[in-house]
């Protein structure tokens, strides 16, 4: 599917948001899914490379693509002027799922990974839900600008050097929100995700009190399919080969054997994946 670049802005040094007209992608994309862009004709390897769908607007048929400095497609997409063209494919794979009964959504990300969850914000607010975003970054200069988030969103930032918001990691802020949130969604480095899962192992114990105090009875209302262990969903990234499910290049360890990020993912319930045991 052919795309035309409509506009681009560099929202942080080396970080781009590009608006593309790609109607058949915009009409089908769902939060958490990736789109793929073909390496350009002059490029030596014909490959599909993932881009993060920061947002999509179905009616005009537009998607907003986020390019971090290390995005695989950065090299050929970032220099394009408006009017530039690229070939898109996707969306492939499984999206993030908001449960019907979930009203409070907690989004947890580090660095530019917030882009992978960004379209979930729009879907959730559109459906009248409340959203809190927790972001971790090295320092203030790498923090996703709050101006890119709707005002209704609660946005809390942690920086490793303390230059903005909480001095520490994004995980330090999680316990404060875990009782409030009906569902959580995370994207980020493998280390952060692992630490998050480890942290959440203590959640049931902590929430025994907190949750019941705040929303008595909600738990049972969710039904069996949405057991509390599905509370966290993650969006993974892996280097990809085919994105068609044949090469097994994107495999990661799942709870019951290897799973392909390009097909079974990119969104997973945290319990579907294999995590290290706490040391």
């Amino acid at each position, binding site marked *: 599917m052919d795309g035309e670049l409509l506009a681009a802005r560099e929202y942080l040094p080396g970080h781009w948001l590009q608006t593309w007209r790609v109607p058949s992608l915009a009409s089908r994309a769902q939060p958490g899914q990736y789109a793929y862009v073909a390496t350009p004709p002059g490029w*030596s*390897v*014909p490959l599909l*490379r993932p881009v993060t769908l920061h947002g999509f607007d179905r009616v005009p048929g537009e998607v907003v693509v986020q390019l971090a400095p290390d995005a695989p497609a950065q090299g050929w997409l970032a220099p394009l002027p408006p009017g530039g063209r690229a070939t898109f494919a996707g969306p492939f794979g499984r999206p993030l799922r908001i449960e019907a009964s979930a009203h409070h959504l907690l989004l947890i990300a580090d660095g530019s990974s917030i882009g992978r969850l960004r379209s979930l914000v729009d879907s959730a607010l559109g459906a009248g839900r409340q959203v809190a975003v927790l972001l971790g970054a090295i320092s203030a200069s790498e923090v996703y600008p709050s101006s890119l988030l709707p005002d209704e969103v609660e946005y809390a930032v942690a920086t490793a050097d303390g230059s903005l918001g909480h001095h520490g990691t994004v995980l330090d802020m999680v316990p404060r929100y875990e009782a409030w949130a009906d569902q959580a969604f995370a994207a980020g480095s493998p280390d952060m995700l692992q630490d998050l899962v480890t942290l959440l192992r203590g959640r049931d114990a902590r929430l025994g009190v907190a949750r019941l105090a705040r929303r008595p009875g909600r738990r049972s209302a969710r039904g069996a399919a949405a057991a509390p262990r599905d509370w966290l969903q993650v969006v993974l990234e892996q*280097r990809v*080969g*085919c994105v068609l499910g044949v*090469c*097994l290049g994107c495999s990661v360890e799942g709870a019951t054997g290897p799973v392909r990020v390009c097909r079974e993912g990119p969104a997973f319930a945290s319990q579907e994946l294999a995590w290290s045991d706490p040391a």
Partner: protein
Amino acid sequence: MTGDDPGDHPGDPGVDLAPERPGALVLRTPILAAAGCLGYGVEAVGQVDLSALGAVVTRGTTLHARAGGPAPRMTDAPAGLLHALGHQNPGITTVLERHAPRWVTWEVPVILSLVATSAEEFAALAERTDGIPGISGLELDLGSVESGRKGRPISYDASSVGHIVAAVRAATDLPVLVKLSITSPDLRGVGRAAAEAGADALDCGSGPPALLQGRRAMLSGPAVGPLALRAVSELARRSRLPIVGCGGVTTLHDATAMLEAGAVAVAVGTAMLADPSLPIRLAAELADQRSS
């Protein structure tokens, strides 16, 4: 596929990858799907008209199931792809049970790629295929970076190649292709050892040993094309066996260069990952070029 009428055009004899076994492995077109890049073929049904391919070489298959290596298994390299997949596969028993019944129904020949580290293990794998319809040939993966010793592919050593091929030859009557690393230092010796031990054809071959985040990995894609061409041309000058050229083929120009260097057929790997119908387009373009 029986080999009775392999050519699309009357009089087109097809490409015989096992001349000493008449009709056993004759390809309609000289373009194959390289090992691992179309899985077991079944994954691609519906996306690709498999019958337009010369043959499908399957994912490398081991005696027992393998979960594969840790992530990341793959990364982009300049004009190429680095991969260390760790031979993830469900093991030969499952593969034969699950897929061979479908392969029987296909027009395209399926060549089963076998992965092992010893002659005995290779022979055991070959024996398992005995009497199982749907398999048109075996490819011994002696080019793999991950199963060779210390990241040196088995095909770096002619005598190992000879032993393994002889053991497999004794275990099966199927056509046997031997896949070599394109950086094998002694291609001449290796080609001779394979031929003397009874191989039917050579696949030249697998990408060279490289490094993926500190782990041993294979490099493939256009970056390795010039190395593959050189290996094929060197082998072709020395070997009487038919040669499948593989490595970096992305365009008609690349495919033609392989055939000019002495290959009788060409396998496409990396370039078909994102576009599984690329080999079919190449086959069509090649046929056009030849008939014009």
